[in-house]
C-alpha cells in the first residue's frame, strides 16, 4: 500500500458488497434515493454533499462531488460558499464548546 488514499479506489467503492452484500445493497439503495431530486434539487443536494465532504475531510468525496456539482450546474462561487459553510460550522462547533470551558472555569475559580 503506497498511500492510504488511492484515487482509483473510488471506482472500487461498490466492491464493499463483497461480504455482507444485503447490507451493502441497502446502503447503495438508500444513498441513491437520498440524492434524487425532492424538495431540494439534485444541484442543491450535491452542494450539501460537497460541504459534508470537506467537513469530514474525505478526498474521495471531494473528488466526486466537485465534479458532480459542476455537472449539476453549480459554479465555483457557489461551491466555494458551500465549503465556507462547512468551515463556518466547524469553527462554530469548536467555539461553542468554549461555553463548556467557561462554565468549568466559573465552577472552579472562586
Amino acid at each position, binding site marked *: 500500500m503506497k498511500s492510504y488514499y488511492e484515487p482509483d479506489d473510488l471506482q472500487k467503492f461498490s466492491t464493499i458488497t463483497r461480504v455482507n452484500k444485503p447490507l451493502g445493497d441497502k446502503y447503495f439503495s438508500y444513498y441513491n434515493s437520498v440524492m434524487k431530486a425532492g424538495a431540494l*434539487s*439534485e444541484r442543491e443536494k450535491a452542494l450539501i454533499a460537497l460541504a459534508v465532504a470537506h467537513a469530514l475531510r474525505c478526498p474521495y468525496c471531494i473528488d466526486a462531488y466537485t465534479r458532480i456539482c*459542476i*455537472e*449539476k*450546474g453549480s*459554479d*465555483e462561487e457557489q461551491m466555494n460558499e458551500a465549503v465556507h459553510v462547512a468551515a463556518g460550522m466547524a469553527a462554530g462547533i469548536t467555539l461553542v464548546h468554549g461555553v463548556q470551558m467557561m462554565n468549568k472555569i466559573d465552577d472552579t475559580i472562586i
Partner: protein
Amino acid sequence: MLPNDQLAILAALPHSFQEAISPHLPEPHALTPCALTTLQLNIGKRCNQSCRHCHVGASPLRTETMSRETMDTCLKVIAEVDEIKTVDITGGAPEMNDNFSYLVKACKNLGKHVIDRCNLTILEEPGYEHFAAFMAEQGVEIMASLPYFRKSYTDRQRGAGVFDKSVRALRKLNGLGYGTTLPLNLIYNPSGMYLSSSQQQLECEFKHHLKQTHGVEFHHLYCLNNLPLDGFLQALLNLDKLTPYMDMLKAAFNPCTLDGLMCRYQLSVSYNGYLYDCDFNQMLDLKIMPTPHIRDFSYDRIINRKITTMNHCFGCTAGSGSSCGGELVK
C-alpha cells in the same frame, strides 16, 4: 487547427468508434441514414465572438461566407425534396451573412421550418438589432447558445460581458413573444472535460435561475457534449487531457443513442456548398462521397450513403447522447 492535423490526432488515439458501434449495427456494421428531414446550412464562419470551445473556430477575423449563388442551389434542393421539413441555419453568427434575410424568407416561402442558431450577443450589435424582430415576424425558431445561467462560466467560455449582453438579448426576444408564443430554446455545453448532467435536471436549474434573477423565459434547454475538435481539442492537448477525455467518452458510450444520431436524419452544407454528414465532419473536411457538392445533389445517393465516422463521434454517443437537438435518450 487544420482538419488534417485534427484527423491525424484522432486517428492516432487507441480508441475505435467503429469497434464500439459494430456490435450494435446490422451488416455491414456502418451507420446509414434513416431519412433526410433537416438540411443544416453553415452560412459562414464569421462571428462577433471567438469562444474557446467553438468547434468551427469562428471569429470576427474569419471571412468565409456562403454566397447567394450557393444559397440558391441549396434552396433548389430544399424545394425539390419534400422530406426536408427543417432548414437549420448555423455559422459563425449566421446573421452576419449579408443574405441571411433572403435565405430565411425563401425557406419560409417554401413552407419549411427554419431554425436560427443564434449566439444572442449578435442581436445587440450595431447594425444587427433588427434581426430579433425580423425572426419573430418570420416565425423562426431560435436555438440560442448560453453555456450557463450565471456570468461565471458564460464569460469564461465566451468572453467578458457576454452573459449580460445575452440576457439583454433574451429579454428583447421575450418581449417579441419568444419563450412563450414563439419557440426559444437554449443550447448548453459543459465548460470543461465532463459530460452534462441530465437535460431535464439542467433545464429546471436554468429556468429557475433565469426567471428568478433576470425574468427570462424560454422553452427547452438542449444539452450538447464537447467534441474533441478544434479549440477544445487544442485545449485538451495543451493540458495533456485528450486521452482521459476520450476514455471518459468511451466509457460513457451508450448504444441506445445510435438510432437518433443527427447524422442519420440530416445533411450539413458548408459555406462553399460541400456536403457533410454533420457539422463536426464538416470541420474535419470529411466530405460525403461520391457526391460531395450540393450542385450534384441526388436524394437516392444521399439516402443510400454510408456515414463517415471517427473517434470524435464518441462525443455524440456518450451518456444520454448529444445532437443539435440536445440529448438523444431520455
